[in-house]
């Protein structure tokens, strides 16, 4: 084997990663991924308001935010999962299953007040199945939830087939699309704000949150520290299923249409937002603020591009580039900064994680 002599960057410390976001300079602190996403978000907003007249209108923003509702809700639970180094790809299918159930039961003459809690319980069970497979059998969650992604979506078709159920009660539909009285904020967005605040506190200030970060960063060490790793993971999956089912109810009422294929592909949008927000897919790193900024950035940017008649293909390219740029910029800047500061070209910089 010919050894590798010609690496482009010789200043290449193999081990000892420098801590992410705990840069010793204030510059380093600013360079955090999630902060960068936040800054981008502000730029998009300012640029949008200046450039396209319709963008900053209350109507448009209210709609754009409402449109993000389900993704944002699911992203909350997904953030916690990814921080704990797990992932749930079945969320969109749970959403679809929940939507199909709502439709089928409504069509069968059930009361919506019974349907909603029931559907949410079903979502929790879906999450429980994911969680049990992951924690009891020790299967990788990526594999498990790819399986349940097909399973739950399939069940949605079993439940509702090719039917599309509409005409849900007005007062409930209003809850899904209407604004909180006296504000331009749709109810789901309001709910999201509340839940986000709760999630933020749980994730960043409580013992449970600490446990998640520890599990994600080094599961064995967390186990040795007396953290109930399996139980916590199970809780997270149940939570994720529950939230996805609830999002399914919101989705159904918001569009006034229950179909088995509702929300197909939503999981990638959620994951993209979470990753864009700076949560490390390997677990143990990330902030909820970053994720919220990520969700908003993807949503508002898309809205802005649409308003300017930018075609979907370009939107897709922009989303992709944004993801790539958001991970690569902090590293490039950090590397450049290191090179400038250190006296010799041999820097000990290593990007946040390898």
């Amino acid at each position, binding site marked *: 084997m010919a050894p590798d002599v010609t690496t*482009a960057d010789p200043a290449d410390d193999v081990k000892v990663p420098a801590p992410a976001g705990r840069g010793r300079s204030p510059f380093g602190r600013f360079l955090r991924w999630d902060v960068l996403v936040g800054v981008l978000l502000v730029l998009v907003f300012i640029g949008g308001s200046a450039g396209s007249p319709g963008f900053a209108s209350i109507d448009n923003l209210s709609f754009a935010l409402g449109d993000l509702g389900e993704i944002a809700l699911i992203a909350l639970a997904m953030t916690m999962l990814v921080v704990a180094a797990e992932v749930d790809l079945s969320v969109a299918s749970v959403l679809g299953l929940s939507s199909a159930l709502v439709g089928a039961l409504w069509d069968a003459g059930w009361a919506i007040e019974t349907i909603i809690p029931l559907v949410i319980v079903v979502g929790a069970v879906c999450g429980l199945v994911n969680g049990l497979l992951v924690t009891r059998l*020790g299967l990788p969650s990526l594999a498990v939830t*790819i399986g349940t992604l097909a*399973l739950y979506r399939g069940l949605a078709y079993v439940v509702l087939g090719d039917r599309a159920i509409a005409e849900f009660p007005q007062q409930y539909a209003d809850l899904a699309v209407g604004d909180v009285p006296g504000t331009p904020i749709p109810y789901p967005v309001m709910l999201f704000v509340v839940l986000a605040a709760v999630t933020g506190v749980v994730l960043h200030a409580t013992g449970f949150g600490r446990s998640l970060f520890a599990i994600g960063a080094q599961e064995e060490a967390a186990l040795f520290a007396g953290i109930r790793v399996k139980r916590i993971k199970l809780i997270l999956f149940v939570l994720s299923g529950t939230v996805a089912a609830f999002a399914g109810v919101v989705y159904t009422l918001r569009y006034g249409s229950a179909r088995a294929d509702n929300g197909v592909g939503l999981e990638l949008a959620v994951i993209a937002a979470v*990753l864009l927000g700076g949560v490390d897919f390997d677990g143990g790193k990330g902030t909820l603020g970053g994720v919220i900024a990520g969700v908003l950035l993807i949503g508002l940017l898309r809205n802005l591009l649409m308003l300017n008649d930018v075609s979907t293909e370009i939107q897709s*390219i922009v989303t992709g580039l944004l993801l790539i740029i958001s*991970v690569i910029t902090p590293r490039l800047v950090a590397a450049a900064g290191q090179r400038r500061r250190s006296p010799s070209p041999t820097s000990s910089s290593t990007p946040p994680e390898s």
Partner: protein
Amino acid sequence: MSAVTAGRSTRGVVDLVFRARELSIVAALAVLVAVTAGVNGNFLSGQGMKDILLNASILVLLAVGQSVVVITRNIDLSVGSVVGLVAFTVGDFLAADHGRGIVFAVVLGVAVGALCGLVNGLLVSFGRVPALVVTLGTLYVIQGLDHFIAHGRQINAVDLPPALLSLGNGTVLGVPYLPVIAVVAMLAVGYYLRSYPSGRDFYAIGSSPEAAGLAGIPVRRRVMGAYLFSGALAGLAGVLWLSRFGTVVADAANGWELQVVSAVVVGGVAITGGVGTVYGAALGALLLTTITSALVVLKVNPFWQQAITGALLLLAISVDRLLALRVARVLRRRNARHGS
């Protein structure tokens, strides 16, 4: 020395466990085919076999490429988009002038695929950014590019040179070309990964990237190589897609990334790297496509098909896992007997 004898028998069982991953898929496959053929003899007819092999071969190619990447503890979500892009651009290119040869088409497809792989590889290995984010990003970018080029157009079979189409449908000694290509690719890659020092490097990197660096393995170059290879195979798959289906719109193979990853995972390649073989991945791909075909042949209600596919997938990985746990326990017990 009791430890040594214990060690030897350990080796046998451990080997068996590793081979068991592939064996269990083969067994599952056998059961599936037997049951289906029992219900409907057509399933094993010449045409039936041909269909299964043809259906699986593109997924097998992609799974082979993907497993090389996954073994290095990375992932390539962009393969589906690459197939789409290559299928369309090569089709477009050939449609413009029938005179262009099919060798040229294959080379062009592989080159476009390799270029996509190069971008992924550069970003992951030199930019040192998480593979999942990067390739999710390139998934969107390549898809966008593909749609941009296609712009709602469609490549039709009539526009394509017959030579290319016969690649998709023709046979050699009664076996269609596509599966032959897939199997050759699988065997070559499998042999390389097992028997060449540089092949082992992929496993070492996936097993512990840090240790690989310290051991003097050219980590970046290998990761780069894995992506390049996966991209090139996706390119080849794109050309084969074109030759098989003839009709191509922009979103060919849209969403296939998850199917490819499923195949790899079902095939026993650990998503955390370092473990697994391309044979397993290829068998996983074969199993997945066979499930789909079998369900149709078994006249399963279409609304149940997806649910059953999902359930079978879960069953496959769960059984495999339970088996492994069981063997581990037996191993431990056996150790006890040796010890005492």
